[in-house]
């Protein structure tokens, strides 16, 4: 039955074509697609990818084609004479050594060019952003302006960016596919008697257009690895600068509003829940790890909560940022993100004892945090 033998290859080809169609169709629906380049870096990789894919598919078609032909043509047939006992052919051997060698060279040259191109800092006043991987969230720092945030990386579109990365604990990997390839985020080493610091890794790219891009940790880092997600928000340069300027100032509700100077002006009274939340937070153990700019909260172990109300998500890209989700998160983060290094109300976490906050207290804290915009 010759056709049965040929079927696997047809099956393969159909599967492959199906795959390609899937790849080609509806790009927009895949927010973490590695074939939807939005930066110069991603574009370099993508054009290389297309090139190599064409080469490899061509080889695949030839090999499968010949294999299918051989399998059908030379199946056992008593009417044919016994096979000629050939032992080899030098010319053929040379041919099928040289041809793959040439293809390999054709792939290696643009590859090596791209290797150097993608690992060179870009010209034109790049914005330096420091990324620090933590189990299981991302710290983001803008050294030029002193702003620190977490899990949502704001970047200007059109301006070159240098990400300088390191880890606070184990090896992570920074990956936002639409912005380009991943790069490991390694713990810094102290080396030699002078304690020289080594271990930063870098990514260089320019985001083309504003947009929101999804990413996540790509090097297994423990229990919460799959939930160590992030977002990149690329904005026009003016929007980005406005955002940065905002973040350099404390949020309006970070501290209690000053008593009104001029009693004739009607200022709307603050939501009492926010006031309660503020008081509860500052007297809780939360502030041992979290910081809020302008407020008596200066912990550095956990994500910086300045203007957390303005973020899209909480829990490192996990939950939509609503007061209800904040409540769930503060009450029992481990049920949402296994391995999280944060204690809940009843259960400890990350080596810390439970916070022992009541539901009412947590609701108030959530209201306060939501107000920080």
């Amino acid at each position, binding site marked *: 039955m010759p056709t049965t033998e040929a079927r696997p290859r047809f099956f393969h080809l159909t599967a492959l074509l199906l795959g390609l169609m899937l790849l080609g169709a509806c790009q927009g629906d895949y927010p973490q697609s590695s074939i939807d380049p939005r930066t110069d870096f991603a574009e370099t990789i993508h054009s290389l990818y297309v090139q190599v894919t064409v080469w490899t598919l061509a080889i695949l078609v030839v090999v499968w084609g010949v294999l299918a032909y051989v399998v059908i043509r030379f199946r056992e047939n008593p009417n044919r004479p016994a096979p000629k006992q050939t032992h080899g052919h030098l010319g053929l051997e040379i041919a099928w050594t040289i041809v793959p060698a040439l293809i390999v060279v054709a792939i290696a040259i643009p590859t090596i060019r791209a290797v150097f191109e993608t690992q060179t800092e870009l010209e034109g006043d790049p914005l330096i952003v420091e990324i620090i991987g933590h189990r299981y969230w991302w710290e983001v720092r803008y050294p030029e302006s002193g702003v620190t945030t977490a899990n949502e990386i704001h970047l200007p579109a059109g301006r070159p960016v240098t990400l300088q990365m390191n880890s606070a604990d184990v090896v992570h990997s920074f990956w936002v596919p639409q912005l380009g390839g991943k790069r490991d985020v390694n713990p810094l080493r*102290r*080396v*030699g*008697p002078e*304690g020289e610091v080594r271990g930063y890794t870098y990514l260089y790219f320019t985001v083309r257009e504003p947009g929101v891009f999804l990413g996540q940790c790509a090097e297994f880092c423990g229990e919460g690895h799959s939930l160590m997600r992030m977002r990149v928000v690329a904005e026009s340069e003016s929007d980005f600068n406005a955002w940065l300027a905002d973040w350099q100032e404390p949020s309006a509700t970070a501290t209690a509003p000053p008593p009104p100077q001029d009693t004739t002006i009607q200022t709307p009274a603050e939501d009492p829940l926010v006031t309660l939340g503020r008081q509860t937070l500052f007297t809780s153990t939360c502030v041992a790890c979290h910081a809020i700019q302008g407020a008596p909260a200066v912990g550095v172990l956990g994500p910086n909560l300045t203007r957390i109300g303005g973020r899209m998500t909480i829990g490192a890209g996990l939950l939509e940022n609503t007061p209800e989700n904040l409540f769930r998160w503060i009450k029992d983060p481990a049920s949402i993100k296994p391995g999280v290094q944060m204690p809940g109300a009843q259960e400890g976490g990350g080596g810390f004892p439970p916070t022992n906050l009541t539901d009412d207290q947590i609701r108030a804290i959530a209201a306060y945090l939501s107000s920080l915009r």
Partner: protein
Amino acid sequence: MSDTAVAEDHHYTATGLPTWKVGFWTFLGSECLFFASLISTYMVYKGASTTGPFPADVLNIPLTSVSTFVLLMSSLAMVLALDGVRRGDKRLASFWLAMVIVLGGTFLGFQVYEFTHFVHEGLTISGNVFGSSFFVLTGFHGAHVTVGVIWMTVLFIMSLRGKLTPAEALKVEIAGLYWHFVDIVWIVIFTLIYLLQ
């Protein structure tokens, strides 16, 4: 050491070499990679410690030169012991095997002294990365020497009992291969750790 089953059964081998010897050379090839990895680790880390003691603070070249010389001499004794066995001279063989044991033991004594002295100076396996890599590398070498000394002791007892006839020379030859290998590894370690700080 009599696992020559198939080879001894039919004396024919494809290469003409005793099967035990081929097998043992292969094993030594494996050992080369083992020590190469340990030595590379040491080389990568020797200057990486953030806190002392640093190599220059503790390594004592004159002392180690003496112990290296002792180990080298033990290789010479090994050669003479094998010669004794081959000649069927039980006294000569036993004497030189004893010398290998004494010299090997002396080397180990130097190492024990060195280790205790270093620990006294504050160099420990957990103190800094130089300590970690130094103790693990030289410790594994010392363990190899120890195994060699035990092996030699067994051969020595066999020799005293007259069990090491010239027909059994291969056993001593293989033990000698091991001993010389461990010796050569030490020369590399001595050069890289002590001489080229």
